């Protein structure tokens, strides 16, 4: 609806205006930051990435979540100036954790920023989220950061909030990453403001397997199948890698890619849960919605995290951000 140049800024202004108690848009630094810093100094958490994946990451800034988010242009990682401003804002003297999704742009820009910030005396720790298991395990490079990013932000955010130190928060974040896997599929391509048309064409009766965010197409195209078959596709590889057979309690996220209606999302998550249950595995928590998106793509990303007591407790603890809120 708007000129491509202002799309991101207008979004950020709108987000700030809608959630003034929780976040603020620092226009000069172009970051979204918690409205007020906690009374007790805590480990800072920041993340960032290309815009167009809303509510990722700005929607997860607030109590129990991120301290600041760096929104890049549409599908473009943020620049170090933003990341460094976010670092400085989030640093309360106890160090800052960078939650980085495994995309070249993020690795490099957060990496450059970390080097500079460390030289300025700020303790920085980095985790790289690569939960996408649509690529085989020997192609780790290609495994993108998907829905587990939200879980890292929620759970490590809770650890920081309760007072854990930087290495503890980092360890929790790594534990979440190690224990989560995602898989995505999509029925079309999004339309970017710059191109003004879908990035790629997809025949009506086909869909993509192994889809990411940021306009990525999947790496396998298939003829349309039933919701039941789609659930199987989404579960298969995560179940293998996380050994659902032995790890019987999961946190399950099902995110629409931006234009997937709620009725379809819940339908699919219901089928997924039923399939898990019939194998003796329980989704002890389920989160369904547009959690990590790709503009107006029609598709889903399913994320599974093995839930032990520690992670579950941190997951359940209060959060108050524009897009996730409970317990407060």
């Amino acid at each position, binding site marked *: 609806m708007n000129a491509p140049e202002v799309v991101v800024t207008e979004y950020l202004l709108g987000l700030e205006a809608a959630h003034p108690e929780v976040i603020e848009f620092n226009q000069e630094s172009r970051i979204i930051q918690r409205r007020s810093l906690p009374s007790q100094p805590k480990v800072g958490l920041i993340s960032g990435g*290309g815009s167009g994946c809303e509510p990722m990451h700005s929607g997860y800034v607030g109590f129990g979540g991120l301290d600041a988010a760096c929104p890049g*242009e*549409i*599908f473009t990682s943020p*620049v*170090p100036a933003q990341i460094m401003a976010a670092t400085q804002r989030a640093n309360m003297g106890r160090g800052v954790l960078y939650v980085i999704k495994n*995309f070249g742009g993020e690795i490099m*820009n957060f990496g450059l920023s970390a080097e500079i910030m460390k030289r300025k005396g700020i303790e920085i720790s980095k985790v790289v989220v690569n939960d996408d298991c649509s690529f085989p395990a020997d192609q780790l490079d290609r495994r993108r950061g998907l829905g587990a990013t939200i879980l890292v932000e929620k759970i490590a955010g809770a650890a920081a909030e309760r007072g854990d130190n930087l290495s503890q928060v980092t360890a929790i974040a790594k534990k979440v990453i190690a224990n989560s896997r995602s898989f995505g599929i999509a029925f079309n391509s999004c339309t970017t403001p*710059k191109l003004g048309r879908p990035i*790629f064409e997809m025949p009506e009766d086909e869909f993509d397997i192994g889809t990411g965010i940021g306009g990525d197409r999947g790496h396998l195209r298939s003829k349309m199948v039933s919701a039941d078959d789609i659930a199987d596709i989404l579960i298969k590889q995560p179940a293998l890698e996380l050994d659902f057979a032995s790890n019987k309690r999961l946190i399950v996220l099902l995110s629409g890619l931006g234009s997937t209606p709620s009725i379809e999302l819940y339908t699919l998550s219901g089928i997924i849960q039923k399939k898990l249950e019939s194998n003796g595995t329980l989704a002890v928590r389920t989160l369904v919605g547009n959690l990590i998106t790709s503009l107006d793509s029609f598709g889903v990303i399913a994320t599974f995290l093995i839930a032990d007591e520690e992670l579950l407790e941190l997951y359940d603890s209060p959060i108050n951000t524009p897009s996730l809120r409970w317990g407060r």
Partner: protein
Amino acid sequence: MTKEINVPIAQDWLKEFCNAVIGLEDYLNELDAAVGDGEHGSNISTGARTLLEEFKSSHHEELGDFFEFVGMTIINSVGGASGALYGTFFLRLSDITANKSSADLAVITDAFTSGLQGIMELGGVKPGDKTLVDALEPAVSSLVVSVKNSDDLLQAFSKAHYAAEFGCAATAQMEARKGRGSYQGQRSVGHIDPGATSMAALVRTFSQAIATDRSPIA
């Protein structure tokens, strides 16, 4: 005949480059749509517009300072993979030309060699991964040969330019192993890499800048 570059020539180079990629914005976006996310043209043009704006008021005596300024401006305006990579390239140029007000082919070749290494290190790529390295690396190899052959600067960059264009075209046959294109695997084959295309423009505009040079050293 230009034997060396100084800050004004370097700035001419960058201006030519900026104007070139701004002109290529849509084309580069289209190339990126085929293998990636359709915004390489916009990313690099954003940096180009920022640079052109900054050039209006910037002033540097030494090449090292100038290239550092270029690198930092790109890093902090472009974003994505290409911002960090292009920025790093210029930061490496800055390292090699530190405290120098001019640079000859040998120094420039060292600088480009270091720039290439910087990109390969930061991006974790090798030639053949279908990235901008596949345009830059042949250009740098050509420069190295030119130094050995004592080519003059213009000769050297004319050859380097052809090498870059050739390398860029060759990316069409490659399967992407880094960057967004890599998610497509085999499906990336058949498309030219957008980053290699903008990188070829960087080499080409260098020869343009020294060919049309109006500076006192000329």
